């Protein structure tokens, strides 16, 4: 099956080359960071986690969301999701890969990372997070690859893979729950010290991850002959809509608890993020953009007309993706550290090297995703009749970058 990687049009190779350039830039920035220390980032004594840990948190959600296509298909035999399930599993593989890399680039002493295994510490949530994340990565690689091999050989999948699929469902919930526990168990950080953190993480994950999956599928059905079917994508769109409504509801509940109780700690971070505090408010425009995009997209998606129009559909999903990314990949971590335990404010902004490393990690993630999807699409195209395969070859001439840009607009 791997031979499918070697056959592709010029656009395919250009995309791979582009990713390699991005990754090379990331490596360069990371080398600089290794040499100097984490002082090259925008992180500080007060905001001691920044962009890296925020991306990690966001991507754990994307990884967990694979369950939103796996569960209906395998547990409820919802046949419509048949073609997209492997896509969900492979998206999870790419996302967890990026999660692991984001944690590693955030370490001050990455060469000592094995100390986590040499001195396993059962009272640290991080220990459990490492276990559930590596387990989830393994499960999705094995399940995705086995199902694809079976499909390629036109045979039913082996029986042993079924229990593994069933395990993967609660496992997906566990990765984001444990990740939420990293934050919600800390006594001194009021913005994070909330029992609703794990449910909120899951709700935003089940909005952002499937939204990304649909966007990728919409691109794939234009540049390749692979088509999971628009009705299936619209159905996932319904899941995204409901998850986003729950997510917005949870955020509003945080507002009520903070501002009605008037407990200073429970208001301070929300004040900083949405209204500015003591004259500091760097994230205010971003948070309101997220609010407008998120609420606007949910309202739009309630109309059938929006879901029927492919462009509007993609636009609404893109808005939800951006909104959840701002909430979790920007506001959540910085908000938790602001104000600091002494009530003072140090503002955070990522630096250029920090953004370079971040892009490099995303580049590696997209490379993994491209490789896995290329094989999947190759397997499926090989099963098509020669005429359709011919059409597929011509369809591949469309530029993926163009379509990514289109989807982003």
């Amino acid at each position, binding site marked *: 099956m791997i031979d499918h990687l070697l056959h592709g049009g010029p656009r395919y190779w250009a995309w791979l080359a582009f990713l390699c350039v991005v990754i090379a830039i990331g490596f360069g920035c990371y080398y600089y960071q290794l040499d*100097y*220390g*984490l*002082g090259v980032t925008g*992180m*500080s*004594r*007060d905001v*001691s*986690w920044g962009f890296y840990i925020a991306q990690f948190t966001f991507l754990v959600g994307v990884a967990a969301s694979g369950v939103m296509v796996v569960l209906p298909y395998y547990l409820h035999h919802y046949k419509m999701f048949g073609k997209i399930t492997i896509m969900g599993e492979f998206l999870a593989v790419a996302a967890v890969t990026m999660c692991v890399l984001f*944690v590693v680039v*955030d*370490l*001050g*002493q*990455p060469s*000592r*990372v094995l*100390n*986590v295994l*040499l*001195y396993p*510490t*059962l*009272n*640290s*949530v*991080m*220990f459990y997070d*490492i276990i559930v994340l590596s387990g989830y990565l393994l499960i999705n690689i094995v399940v995705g690859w086995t199902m694809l091999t079976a499909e390629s050989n036109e045979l039913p999948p082996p029986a042993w893979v079924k229990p593994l699929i069933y395990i993967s469902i609660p496992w997906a919930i566990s990765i984001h729950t444990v990740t939420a526990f*990293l*934050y919600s*168990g*800390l*006594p*001194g*950080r009021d913005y994070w010290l909330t029992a609703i953190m794990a449910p909120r993480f899951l709700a935003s994950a089940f909005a952002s991850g499937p939204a990304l999956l649909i966007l990728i599928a919409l691109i794939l059905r234009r540049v390749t002959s692979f088509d999971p079917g628009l009705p299936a994508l619209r159905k996932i769109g319904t899941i995204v809509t409901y998850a986003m409504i729950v997510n917005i509801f949870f955020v509003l509940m945080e507002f009520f608890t903070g501002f009605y109780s008037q407990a*200073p*700690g429970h208001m301070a971070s929300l004040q900083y993020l949405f209204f500015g505090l003591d004259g500091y408010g760097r994230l205010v425009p971003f948070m309101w953009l997220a609010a407008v995009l998120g609420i606007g997209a949910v309202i739009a998606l309630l109309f059938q007309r929006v879901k029927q129009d492919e462009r509007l559909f993609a636009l609404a999903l893109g808005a939800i993706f951006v909104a959840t990314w701002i909430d979790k990949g920007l506001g959540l971590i910085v908000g*938790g*550290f602001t104000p*600091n*335990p*002494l*009530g*003072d404010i*140090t503002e955070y902004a990522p630096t250029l090297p920090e953004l370079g490393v971040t892009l490099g990690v995303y580049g590696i993630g997209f490379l993994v995703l491209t490789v896995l999807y290329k094989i999947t699409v190759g397997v499926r195209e090989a099963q098509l009749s020669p005429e359709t395969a011919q059409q597929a070859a011509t369809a591949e001439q469309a530029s993926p970058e163009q379509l990514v840009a289109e989807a982003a607009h």
Partner: protein
Amino acid sequence: MRRLSRRQFLSIGGLVVVGASASQVMSALARDEKAPVATATIRYAMVIDPAKCAQDPTCRDCIDACHKIHNVPLFAPNAQGEETDKAHEIKWIWKATFEEAFDEQEGDNYATGGMKEQPMMLLCNHCDNPPCVRVCPTQATWKRASDGIVMMDFHRCIGCRFCMSGCPYGSRSFNFRDPRPFVQEINTSFPTRTKGVVEKCNFCEERLAQGQPPACVEACRQKALVFGNLEDPNSEAHKILAERLALRRKEHLGTRPQAYYITS
């Protein structure tokens, strides 16, 4: 004798591994972290008298003494020898306002007497129930059973900074760059640090081992800092706390901090 198939051998082997690790998990969960405290004969604590400290507002003797013997770097100092690179500052003991130290008592203008105008010396609280120790994934920071000091292994720390998020007092600093070129005068009897690790006050455990008091206590001319064993009824620290009302930072979080600020 029945021979095991490879599949059976692997499943039995797997079960043994799972069982062995489960027993580890159970024993760790069953461990009562409070138990050693009740039986300990030493519980070190710092008793701070801000009123005495206020007698000389420009004094920074304790800070200088501590940072000198512990090889704490000074980035971009100004003319007064104060840190200006606040974002990457390393500090083991420092001066803060009452509002910063006790932000939850901001509206309290009466009960705390003159404390609102006094400087508060902040340092690691050496909590009896330290969140930083709970979250560390490598046991690079731990509470010493013999005397309650929250210790730090600079060589095991992986620099994940989970402890900094866990500490509700902002008492931990991270080496965002190589500190060695910025140490004024290296004390060879105490380790310097590398970039990428966390550090904090250690109650001068290296001096205690030689029967000396912490450097900050020794340096303070106003005798505003009293260090002692609270389990010993004859210690000065114990006697002061028996007579005078003291505040502790964020007591409601259940960390049981061991830095006491006596009210005037």
